């Protein structure tokens, strides 16, 4: 399986994402610059964390109009797995690929620490390798991860089981403890915690690796004969 790590000016978790895929997951991966005009050759699209365009105006607001985002939309429509982490999640929200928006953390502090997440839905292409309601430890690092959507949207997220990860102890004021959501189709995941920073026990946790393994397993089952 071949992944693309999209690099915007100001991305800073792109190298971690690349490392997680290449060295820990053992799959093919390439960096793709924000002005790329095609993502056809990639099977999975990864939008890393960071501060694209300096977070000017709003997090993700300017990156969302990058040339490559038209291709990310196409990839999402084609059913390819699209994962946005942290700033990547914010870009997916701004692009309208996921519902809602991010506010400043309730405490106004930038929060950088490992947090416990509950796997609310393990029936997605991103979470198949986790147990239902499993608690996993993944680090967060953000100043604007306080998820918000209106009541109607929240009801729809709940009804369609689109809330994939919740915080066990809400660090940022996020609505309904939301840490990660998928789109209705289930192939676009946005999450504030960084699974790519939790792929080796040496660094505190390897709980994030299963997320990437889930993507690969789902893809193999669909694309490789006798998988």
């Amino acid at each position, binding site marked *: 399986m071949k992944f693309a790590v999209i690099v915007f000016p100001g991305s800073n978790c792109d190298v971690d994402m690349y490392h997680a895929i290449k060295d820990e997951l053992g799959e093919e991966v390439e960096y793709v610059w924000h002005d790329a005009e095609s993502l056809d050759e990639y099977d999975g699209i990864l939008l890393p964390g960071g501060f694209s365009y300096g977070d000017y*105006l*709003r997090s993700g*607001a*300017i990156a969302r*109009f990058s040339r490559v985002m038209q291709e990310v939309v196409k990839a999402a429509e084609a059913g390819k797995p699209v994962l946005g982490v942290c700033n990547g999640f914010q870009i997916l*929200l*701004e692009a309208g690929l996921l*519902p*809602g*928006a991010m*506010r*400043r*953390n*309730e*405490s*106004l502090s930038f929060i950088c620490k490992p947090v416990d997440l509950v796997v609310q839905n393990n029936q997605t292409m991103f979470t198949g390798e986790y147990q239902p309601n499993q608690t996993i430890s993944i680090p967060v690092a953000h100043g604007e991860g*306080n998820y*918000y*959507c*209106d009541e109607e949207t929240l009801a729809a997220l709940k009804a369609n089981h689109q809330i994939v990860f919740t915080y066990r102890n809400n660090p940022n*004021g996020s609505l309904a403890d939301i840490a990660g959501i998928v789109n209705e189709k289930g192939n676009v995941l946005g999450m504030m915690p960084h699974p790519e920073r939790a792929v080796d026990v040496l660094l505190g946790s390897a709980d994030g690796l299963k997320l990437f393994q889930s993507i690969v397993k789902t893809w193999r089952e669909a694309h490789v004969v006798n998988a």
Partner: protein
Amino acid sequence: MYKVKVFVTLRESVLDPQGKAVTHSLNSLNYHEVTDVRIGKYMELTIEKSERNIDEVVNEICTKLLANPVIEDYRYEVEEVVAQ
């Protein structure tokens, strides 16, 4: 040419953590009459005249980029000026 002043604010229904912190700070400075602060953004745009209606252009710009309609409202003022 137009000078357009755009004000972007969080929607009333959305809690403003920055505004809350500033309210507390003002209260602790003994301004107890301050009951609420809402923090927003102010932008000045210079826009050349075109065949398109200025309100149409500004509304489009605001909904597309300057404000996020999920959490923010905007209003604006248009002033027509002579090009320098």
